[in-house]
């Protein structure tokens, strides 16, 4: 009864879990985020919090497995849908909310979803076929669903206590997470003691690629990073402002004003203080500096921020607490299109405990 009465507000403002492959067109990702913000649909924190699973672009086989694993844990009423072109975003989301209201989709674990009917400029409807959201031929070694296993002692240890280590795969379905990235991490408590990066379906390239250039342009890249960092920090109104500026063409004055506001925001500065960025991944030595530089360069003529490879960025997470590591990763904004891995998953640890 309670759940039924809650269903109509859920259908009005569903929580959306977006899943994007590393190769996703940034314009599509931004279009989806903008449309979700316009509708004031909140982003889901976790699969359990999700009403609509929205797959952006075309996921590769590994990511498709992840989508299946996620979908299996989403509670009903739920909708799984996908969008591949910017123009289709609006109609896909409209269909999703209709699906949540109607009984046809609710609780139905169909992996096929009604695709966006792409509207052309003339208003005609094109491409009305159902498109399979997931590519076929995927393997079954699903990566998501971090399942803690008791294992050997942690390799590096902050407190001198060699604690039991957990091997977990973080990502790729986490809020404000680089698209397609999986971090294979070893945790001691909530401390990351070892980490390796893998970008699903995009193996590391041999030789130097086009290093860290974002197709978004300097200011939009900065605002994109800031949106994620602020969102993770829970500074929701600042994050919303950053996203707003990112999604339209702001007057340069607005950018510098916003940048100054961020730099002068004492609670914000205090909240990101004291986190080192080790390994020389980017020119900044601390998280505070990185955020300050991102904010300070807004509206200026400086070159775009350096975006490290996923492998390098993940090295900077070792020794950090899980939540702090998430902040650092968001601030480093690794370029996942460069690929990383593949990594052989940790072998299932023997159950026996080390000192028994």
């Amino acid at each position, binding site marked *: 009864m309670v759940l039924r009465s809650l269903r109509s507000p859920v259908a009005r403002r569903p929580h959306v879990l977006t899943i994007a492959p590393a190769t996703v067109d940034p314009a599509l990702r931004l279009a989806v985020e903008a449309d979700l913000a316009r509708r004031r649909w909140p982003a889901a924190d976790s699969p359990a919090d999700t009403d609509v699973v929205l797959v952006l672009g075309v996921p590769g086989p590994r990511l498709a497995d992840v989508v299946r694993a996620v979908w299996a844990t989403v509670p009903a009423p739920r909708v799984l849908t996908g969008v591949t072109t910017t123009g289709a975003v609006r109609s896909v989301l409209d269909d999703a909310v209709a699906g949540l209201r109607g009984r046809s989709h609710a609780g139905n674990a169909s992996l096929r979803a009604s695709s966006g009917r792409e509207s052309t400029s003339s208003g005609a409807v094109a491409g009305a076929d159902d498109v399979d959201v997931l590519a076929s031929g995927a393997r079954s070694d699903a990566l998501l669903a971090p399942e*803690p296993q*008791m294992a050997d002692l942690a390799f590096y240890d*902050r*407190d*001198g*206590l060699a*604690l039991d280590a957990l091997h977990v795969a973080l990502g790729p379905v986490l809020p404000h997470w680089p698209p397609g990235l999986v971090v294979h991490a070893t945790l001691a*408590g909530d401390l990351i003691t070892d980490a390796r990066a893998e970008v699903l379906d995009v193996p590391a390239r041999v030789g130097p690629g086009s290093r860290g250039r974002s197709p978004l342009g300097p200011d939009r890249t900065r605002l994109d990073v800031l949106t994620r960092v602020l969102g993770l920090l829970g500074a929701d109104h600042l994050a919303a402002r950053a996203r707003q500026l990112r999604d339209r063409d702001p007057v340069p004055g607005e950018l510098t004003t916003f940048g100054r506001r961020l730099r002068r925001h004492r609670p914000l500065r205090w909240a990101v203080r004291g986190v*080192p960025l*080790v390994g020389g991944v980017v020119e900044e030595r601390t998280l505070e500096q990185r955020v300050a530089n991102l904010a300070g360069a807004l509206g200026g003529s400086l070159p775009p921020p350096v975006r490290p490879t996923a492998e390098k960025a993940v090295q900077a997470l070792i*020794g950090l607490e899980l939540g702090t590591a998430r902040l650092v990763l968001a601030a480093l904004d690794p370029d996942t299109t460069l690929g990383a891995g593949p990594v052989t998953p940790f072998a299932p640890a023997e*159950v026996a*405990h080390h000192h*028994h």
Partner: protein
Amino acid sequence: MIALVSALGAVAVVTGLLVFTADSMARATFLLLGSFVAVAVVLIGFGLGYLGTVVILMMTIEMMIMVVFMVMLMMNPAGLMPMTMVHNRRGSWAIALVVFGLLTAGVWLVPFPVRAGAATGGVTSGPAAGPDATVALGDALMGGQMLTMMTLGLALLATIVGTVAVAVSRREGRAERRGIS
């Protein structure tokens, strides 16, 4: 009153026993907390509202700390595999049973000098004929029993200093200097 004390007394004992049969550390801690809360409710029933509430407060915090230590230090935090970690089980049982027998015999055989008219009330009234129990306790601690209070204070101070001295290791300092922590 009889029903309250018997029921909660039984709860306290049973949860206490289960602590040592639980198959996971976290469960053991929560059972121990159950035992404490049962005792605390009896105290409140006796009219010791303040002390009963403080026991709940302190023990909940204490168990929270304990459970984190367990997960940190011990095998099997989540009950993934059954655990038994006993040694000398038979001897321990024998000692425990003898102690219980002696104490119980004492409890039931010794005639207690119950003060006449002291406690006649129901669950909530208790011996509330005199001044407020909390006020009386405070008066005592800050008056006649000041020595106790000072000793407790010193003991706590010694504990703070002692635990910090024992727990802080040199390695930790080094890690900090490396700028990692």
